[in-house]
């Protein structure tokens, strides 16, 4: 019978993370404030921004754009007044 070996795990130690439920979904978009947080290259988000604003004129669209790997955080005021966030990452 072939010899057996104990073989070790190469994986690192993952720190635990507290997890949260998703924010409640919107029943309708009308009259809501929806924030587009765009980071990376413009690309798809150029037509996306145009189409969203044109197709949903009753939404109060707010936008932040940043050429960076980390999106811009919402301000305290935006956190109070924003109903939903779309995070666009384009690389």
């Amino acid at each position: 019978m072939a010899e057996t070996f104990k073989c070790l795990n190469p994986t690192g130690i993952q720190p635990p993370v507290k997890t949260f439920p998703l924010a409640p979904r919107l029943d309708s978009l009308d009259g809501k404030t929806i924030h587009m947080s765009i980071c990376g290259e413009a690309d798809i988000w150029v037509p996306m921004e145009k189409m969203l604003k044109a197709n949903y004129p009753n939404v109060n669209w707010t936008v932040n754009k940043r050429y960076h790997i980390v999106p811009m955080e919402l301000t305290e005021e935006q956190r109070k007044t924003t109903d939903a966030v779309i995070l666009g990452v384009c690389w």
Partner: protein
Amino acid sequence: MHDSTLHGIPKLRHLVASRNSVGGVTEAEYLLPLVIEELTRPLNQEEQKGGLWAPYESRILFEGTLQEAEEFYNQVEYIPEILNAPFSRYTDGLPVVIPTEERVEAMLKGTSHKPDELMTLQRDLDVRGFGAIDISTRRKKGDLVTFMPMYRSATVEQVAVNAVMAGCKPEQFPVVLAIAESGGGTGDGRGGGGAFMVSGPIYKEIGMNVTNFVFGPGNPVNKALGRVGSLMWRNLGGYKETVTTITTLGSPVTNGGFIIAGVYNDTLYGTDEFYLIKTNSSGDVGWLTTLPQQGLSWEGAYSVQETTDNGFIMVGYTREEYGQYDVCLIYYNPWPQPDVKANGMDGPLNVSSNVIVSITIELHPSTYFDTYSDWWFVVWAPWGIYSLVWDQGWVPWLVPTIQYPLYHISSPFEVFRGRLPPGNYIVYFGVDKADGIVNPYLRYDEVWINVK
């Protein structure tokens, strides 16, 4: 998706799209209804749960014969969506040396650190960011080493497991620990393995090749040390392509291949110049160039790094005959660099409809001077996309303005002058390979104009 997990929202809804179509219109049309659906579709039970994400990994991963272990360690998993391909669960894609307890124990004899000691920094460390990753950090001696991209920690024994798998020997383990101390970095598009510089007498003691063909096959130490980073970032750091990070090509240069900087010795004039060679991924020369001298006689590059705009920054030396050496930093961009301005500005330009708008272009062809190319002058107007064609004027959609060799336009050349109706406009000026269509070689500039 790893970021959402690490920030406590593993069930974050996400959508994926390619970037294949011109201007991204096709992808935007595909994504738009899906985005709206994700905003409005009620949460399911899983999405409403909170809790603790704490994956557990046992010290002994597998028990069996060596043959069975080989099969186990070389397993792959299929990664859907962007990658859409198999990906190795524990390796860099090649067979590994099986990390039996005995082999790992032997590896640990190469260091005085204890097996259960957590990896910590052995010195203060400044990590400089740049471009779109300008996140500089200062870390102190004794801080835990954070293995990226999953922000994990590791024991000395876990590093030794990866060293065994890479084919390293115990006498090389101090170098492996030094590499591990970097914590890895899985790239912003340029590679998941990294490159390492080994200095000091240890390079001789462990038998590295530092003369000819240092990146080539043949020297076991160069190869094993070059490989161990890929395994550590995969296993210790949790790097999983398109899941925990996106590295696109995994090459030192964003469009593939290698960039090499050095010295060009001009035997006719007896001077040295900065020398830059770009190869494709097979090692064939794509282009090479010497750089204009900075007015001195002896200059050369020691190091080169790609910049976020796909140019190259080199550091080297410069000196007069019999003079002192000075440090020299040179930036070089090999790509054509089109520039478009509205009323002399890069934009956005905000004007009223009674103001005359002047749109000018400039072009620096760099290494593509005299290369037959498509020239594009395109406007995205409120009523559609229009191209300015040399002999036809404005035509709908994307048509090259002209096919012509690239040349220097070093002072602003006015292409359009007039008033614009109210609305938002984006004006593009670009050049690419002469095939009549927009292709991946496109280099362009844009200016936004908002007319009220």
